[in-house]
């Protein structure tokens, strides 16, 4: 075991290497490309047995990943935003093949406008597909989560592919200290791949991914995949406990920080949650009882854990770094449906949307989010969702619009 400065992408590559990934179908996209470059280097030099093959699109890449998993090898791949969407047909398709593998998504905002920096709209677009989702807040977690993801995916009760998400730029290109576990310990935690009955062999003819006609049989197959996804929360609990025993780090389905006696809690996913932890400490110093709930699992959605940790609180501020056009924050809706009708659910459920396309959420904004949530709790009324944006930002876009010669009827005061 060594401790080194690794970028999130570097940590992801190490996760695949330690997991003995046999096959990496690849396609480059910012901000993930460093992952496949690192793996390509290791395959080329012989440090990793197996192979990396570049496909011509993410749609093909995900097809090849699922097909190789269905043939019976351990598969790793990686993508981001536009690539994830380009392959979305196959994301749904391969999940239904019930052949497990791990895919890293390095989150990046979606076109339009096309951009390069992080938010969660891309990975959340895959939430209905059947892929499980683990969300990381640090580079260490990225490496750890890949190892855990293989255990989770390949468990006989699960047999679903898993996405491990890390934020573009904030984690992908940022170096942080990472403990790289020794290969023998990893081998004990994660044994060699067992394809079970998802494989192709001459002696055992099999037809996989076949067509189904008729709503009843179709429903059966869909329900079963869903039940496996729901049940995987228990599998995850077992895997997390084993991981802690083996490596000393605990990664629960929910990372709850100073929630026990909190009156207000932030709910978030991803790397900005570390900023929220710092904000929680500052708010506590200023005399406010605030906590942070970070969902590590988004699929399966950790329903029982969430209900338990927020029970009896005065208010929740869900901070969504994503946007469902025409509705709002995705996590907000999922939290709301999880808590609806429960007697101990917090009466105030606030929605804040920010961090799109890598937009920062400053410490002052986090403090203000807490302040608005406190006020709502006092008023007994939840205000409408807030899109985080400042007067200065609006001024800036106006300047750009002048250059773009956007036609305006008249400028409003203050612009």
């Amino acid at each position, binding site marked *: 075991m060594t401790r080194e*400065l690794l*970028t999130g992408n570097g940590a992801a590559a190490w996760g695949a290497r330690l997991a003995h990934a046999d096959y990496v179908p690849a396609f480059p996209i910012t901000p993930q490309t460093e992952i496949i470059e690192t793996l390509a280097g290791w395959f080329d030099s012989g440090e990793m047995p197996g192979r990396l093959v570049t496909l011509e699109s993410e749609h093909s890449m995900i097809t090849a990943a699922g097909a190789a998993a269905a043939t019976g090898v351990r598969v790793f791949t990686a993508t981001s935003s536009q690539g994830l969407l380009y392959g979305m047909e196959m994301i749904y398709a391969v999940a239904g093949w019930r052949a497990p593998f791990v895919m890293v998504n390095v989150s990046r905002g979606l076109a*339009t*406008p096309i951009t*390069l920096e992080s938010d969660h709209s891309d990975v959340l677009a895959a939430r209905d597909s059947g892929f499980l989702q683990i969300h990381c807040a640090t580079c260490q977690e990225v490496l750890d989560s890949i190892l855990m993801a293989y255990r989770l995916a390949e468990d006989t009760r699960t047999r679903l592919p898993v996405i491990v998400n890390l934020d573009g*730029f*904030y984690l992908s*290109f*940022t*170096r*942080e*200290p990472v403990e790289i576990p020794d290969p023998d310990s990893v081998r004990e935690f994660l044994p060699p791949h067992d394809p079970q009955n998802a494989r192709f062999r001459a002696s055992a003819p099999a037809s996989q991914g076949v067509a189904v006609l008729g709503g009843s049989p179709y429903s059966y197959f869909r329900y079963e995949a869903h039940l496996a996804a729901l049940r995987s929360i228990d599998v995850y609990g077992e895997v997390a406990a084993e991981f802690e025993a083996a490596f000393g780090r605990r990664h629960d389905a929910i990372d709850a920080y100073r929630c026990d006696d909190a009156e207000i809690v932030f709910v978030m996913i991803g*790397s*900005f949650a*570390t*900023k929220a*932890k*710092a*904000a929680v400490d*500052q*708010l506590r*110093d*200023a*005399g*406010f009882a605030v906590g942070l709930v970070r969902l590590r699992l988004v699929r399966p959605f950790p329903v029982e854990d969430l209900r338990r940790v927020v029970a009896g609180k005065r208010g929740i501020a869900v901070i969504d770094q994503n946007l469902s056009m025409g509705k709002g924050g995705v996590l907000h809706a999922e939290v709301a449906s999880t808590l609806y009708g429960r007697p101990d659910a917090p009466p105030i459920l606030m929605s804040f949307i920010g961090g799109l396309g*890598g937009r*920062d959420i*400053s*410490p*002052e*904004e986090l*403090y*203000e989010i*807490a*302040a608005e949530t406190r006020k709502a709790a006092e008023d007994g009324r939840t205000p409408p969702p*807030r*899109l*985080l*944006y*400042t*007067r*200065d930002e*609006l001024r800036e876009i106006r300047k750009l*619009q002048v*250059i*773009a*010669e*956007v*036609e*305006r009827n008249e400028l*409003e005061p203050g612009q």
Partner: protein
Amino acid sequence: MVTASRVLGSAFFLSGFEVQDAPRYGAERRGAPTFAYVRASRTPIRERGVIRHPDLVIIGDDSLPAVPVAGVMEGVSAHTATLIHTRETAEAWKHRLNLAGPVMTLPTSEEVADDTDLPFVGCVSAGAAARLVGVISREALVKAVDKEIAPFGQAAVRENERRALQAYERMAAHAGTVTEGVEIAAAGYDAPEWIQVPFEEARISAPAIHAAATSVQVKTGAWRTMRPVVDDTRCNQCWWICSTFCPDSAITVSAESRPEIDYDHCKGCMICVAICPSHAIDAVREQEAQTKEPEGP
């Protein structure tokens, strides 16, 4: 500057600190301004993204403060120390940029003809910074240089070590000048000026540009470290080779058949210098050319 952040980051890490370092990808093109950042702390680091309140700013190219879009001086306060690679004095910069905090300089290398060829600015910056923060030993610095420069070969490692240590010594008088800042408290903070995002019809709010050639407003001339200068006495007034081959359309030919270089946009790629058949274009250091500005366009 990515090298600088990696060497400094590694040096901190080897000295027992938690570290977070990253390059910042803006217009990542050859010649464009780049920057990187490093955070170091005794406890796990929970901040993310670009540093808003730097304790130390290192400027590798002293033409950058004049380029607003480079954002070099953003977040600089009385607490911030500034280190500049420059031929001018610290006092001149302190005055010019109105800096309340300490200002240190590193001499830019005399023997290098083109500033973009400065291969050592990364390790030199890291070496100086290591002394300024006062918590990194020579040994940690050397090990950090070894680690980060190893892919470039042993000769590069040795030369970079030498220069890093040189810079480290140079900063002896300022050792420990850079100190840790404080987090913004949750009591008495400046509340963000949040607004309700105003609804605007798509004809305004769609990401579309309704004009031609607006890129002309971006002065890519600021990228330049070398400037091409046409010597009219040697120019043969050919079929305007220089104008044809300038990738940025920065050379036009006048009615009198004289090439005119648009210095607001010339990036200093030197293609015109290389292909002029009569060698009529000279490469001049940008800083020199600027001091002789009156003759420019």
